[in-house]
């Protein structure tokens, strides 16, 4: 596929989805999602470093700023982050398996399905705790000292 054939979809297809970089098989989507989730997590990480750097300004500023994270809207938005992390974790393990396990390539598609299944499972498990407080489940509390 050359640039001309891609036409008006060139930006989305040719560049962003990577159709012009390589025409993979099922792995193309695993690659695209890995890249997308990675960039999303990086964006959050930079925001997160900025918010922890507010610790220097003292408790009033810090608590004001990070109380945003426990508002219902941001709790819901955190689900996107949790989903991205879970996908990136399990697909990352799949990539390492393809690289270092000699039969990894042969089972790449099965491993992708397994990675997706595990990511969805862990996303649900984790997500319940994150959005629970919106609906009155898992009301905010502090765990034993060992978990701090």
């Amino acid at each position, binding site marked *: 596929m050359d640039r001309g054939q891609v036409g008006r979809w060139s930006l989305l297809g040719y560049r*962003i989805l*990577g159709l*012009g*970089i*390589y*025409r*993979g*098989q*099922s*792995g*193309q*989507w*695993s*690659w695209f999602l*890995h*890249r997308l989730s*990675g*960039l999303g997590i*990086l964006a959050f*990480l*930079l925001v997160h*470093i900025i918010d*922890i*750097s507010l*610790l*220097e300004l*003292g*408790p009033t500023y*810090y*608590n004001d700023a*990070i109380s945003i*994270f*426990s508002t219902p809207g941001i*709790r819901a938005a955190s689900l996107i982050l949790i989903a991205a*992390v879970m996908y990136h*974790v399990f697909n*990352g*393990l*799949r*990539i*390492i398996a*393809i*690289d*270092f396990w000699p039969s990894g*390539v042969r089972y*790449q598609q099965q491993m*992708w399905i397994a990675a997706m299944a595990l990511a969805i499972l862990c996303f649900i498990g*984790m997500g319940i*705790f*994150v959005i629970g*407080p919106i609906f009155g489940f*898992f009301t*905010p*509390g*502090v*765990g*034993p*000292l060992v*978990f*701090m």
Partner: protein
Amino acid sequence: MRINQSSPNRKISAYGAPQRPLQGGFELYSWYFFRFSGILLIGFVVVHLLIMHVANDVHCTAYDFVAIRYANPYWRLFDWMMLMLALFHGLNGLRIVIDDYVRPYTWRLVAQSGVWLLALTFFWLGTIAILTFHAVPNPGSPCVAHPLG
């Protein structure tokens, strides 16, 4: 199979896994760093998520929570290692994404310089925040009693 012809030392297989750079050098170290830091980060991030979202809740992970946690230097070390691994794993990813999409030399130079600037700035911001945190008395806390009152 089409591969990225513009950078022969960095190819992606048809299975969505970047191939190990054959020519060695920086790209090979980058390739190994991705995998090594990725494995470590899984452990760090799982523990971090369980502490911040399951054992506790974001409503309670406020200033006093940090004060209690950071009384223990090992938690500072834990957080700092996680932060540095995540930052350089992520920015190394951004570096490769820029190489893939930004083709004109000048724009690539500008973008890659931006990545290094981000690396320096956020390394500094994160390190200062974690290593120099010194708890001050806090009148009100959402969940926990402050160790200093």
